[in-house]
């Protein structure tokens, strides 16, 4: 085989491998959050299962007492009211538990509609809350999340793609924080665009690191925690797909702020 032909072949193979890597990134990044997501769902499910058992048994008991009182013509014992009170409070807990599970599932749905190729008007705060649900089950006990969403019209975008960007920025922020800290998320209108800011009180980046953050494969994290694809993919999604901008400021030891801007409307195809 001619060397030139061989090189061309290798280049095609490399390009294919790279595309596959990038395509598998969203699912892989979700996979790394799975333990936290499972934990986030396990707690409400445990509650619901337990409450269901208690409710079934309590209802049996109430039925027996009411039947007895009907048969003997005596009023039901006051204990029946206590049991009903417990049942009312357990059903309130169940409602809360279901809401918790639903919000995680909603986050997962937005995130996993990856094939979705259509532009759709979406609420940025909703996308942010969904991404937070997926990212923060692991971090919420040590990292405080503050949000400040200014009233903002819906934004035409590829929602699952933007959700991917947000998830990566939130995970990066949480991983930059050792021990306790704060992540502040805000939205506003700026320069005719929709702006999202994600600020953390984490370790920040040195100037050398700052120069490389958007490079494919640049990571300071151990294998398993980071692939170094997050920001290069985010850059592509924001800048190339949405005609927006992504920039940051960072100070070692103080923290980092990432700022994304996207236009409110996308060009019609």
């Amino acid at each position: 085989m001619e060397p030139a032909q061989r090189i061309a072949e290798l280049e095609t193979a490399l390009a294919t491998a790279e595309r596959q890597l990038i395509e598998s990134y969203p699912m892989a990044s979700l996979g790394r959050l799975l333990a936290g997501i499972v934990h986030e769902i396990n707690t409400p499910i445990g509650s619901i299962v337990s409450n269901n058992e208690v409710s079934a048994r309590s209802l049996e008991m109430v039925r027996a007492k009411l039947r007895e009182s009907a048969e003997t013509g005596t009023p039901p014992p006051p204990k029946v009211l206590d049991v009903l009170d417990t049942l009312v409070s357990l059903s309130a807990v169940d409602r809360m538990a279901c809401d918790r599970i639903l919000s995680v599932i909603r986050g997962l749905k937005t995130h996993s509609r990856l094939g979705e190729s259509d532009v759709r008007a979406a609420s940025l705060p909703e996308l942010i809350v969904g991404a937070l649900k997926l990212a923060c089950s692991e971090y919420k006990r040590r990292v405080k999340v503050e949000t400040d969403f200014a009233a903002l019209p819906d934004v035409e975008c590829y929602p699952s793609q933007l959700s991917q960007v947000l998830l990566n920025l939130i995970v990066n922020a949480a991983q930059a924080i050792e021990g306790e800290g704060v992540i502040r998320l805000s939205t506003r209108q700026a320069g005719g665009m929709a702006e999202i800011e994600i600020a953390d009180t984490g370790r920040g980046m040195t100037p050398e690191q700052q120069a490389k953050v958007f490079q494919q494969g640049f990571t300071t994290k151990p294998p398993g925690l980071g692939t170094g694809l997050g920001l290069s993919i985010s850059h592509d999604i924001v800048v190339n797909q949405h005609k927006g901008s992504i920039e940051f400021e960072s100070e070692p030891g103080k923290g980092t702020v990432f700022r994304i801007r996207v236009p409110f409307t996308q060009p019609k195809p």
Partner: protein
Amino acid sequence: MSQQPVIVLVDDEEMVITSIRAYLALETEYTVHGFTAPLEAVKFLRGHEVDVVISDFLMPRMNGLELLAAAKDRQPEAARVLLTGHADKQSAIQAINQVGLFQFLEKPWDNAQLLLVINSALERTRLVRDLARKIAELDAAHSTIKEAQRRLIRAFL
């Protein structure tokens, strides 16, 4: 344990405490003290005798292992149980070694199994306390004998 057994339950999720409390109220006469803040539980353990401490693992400010270590420090006889949503073998092994864990339960938990664990934990606590009392009695008896011996010796001197 002359009165009803006392259980301390720590989980940063209020719903877990509500559910387990409702179940134990249905099945037992045990007194349950629930805490969503680990530090509050530690404060409580300082002033009240308890029989079993059950704790979640992932909580803000203080994790389950730290809490159970504090419990061991304050009330060594109370049995310690970890109830965790992380199927994390590593932290389980660490817990068993570090804080002398009685049992390790995973979320979502099974009520019947939870009750079984609580009851055997109570039994263990009772045995440990009995043993401590017997040893104290023996000690007392021993020192009485020693004292009698001393007096006897003195009488002959």
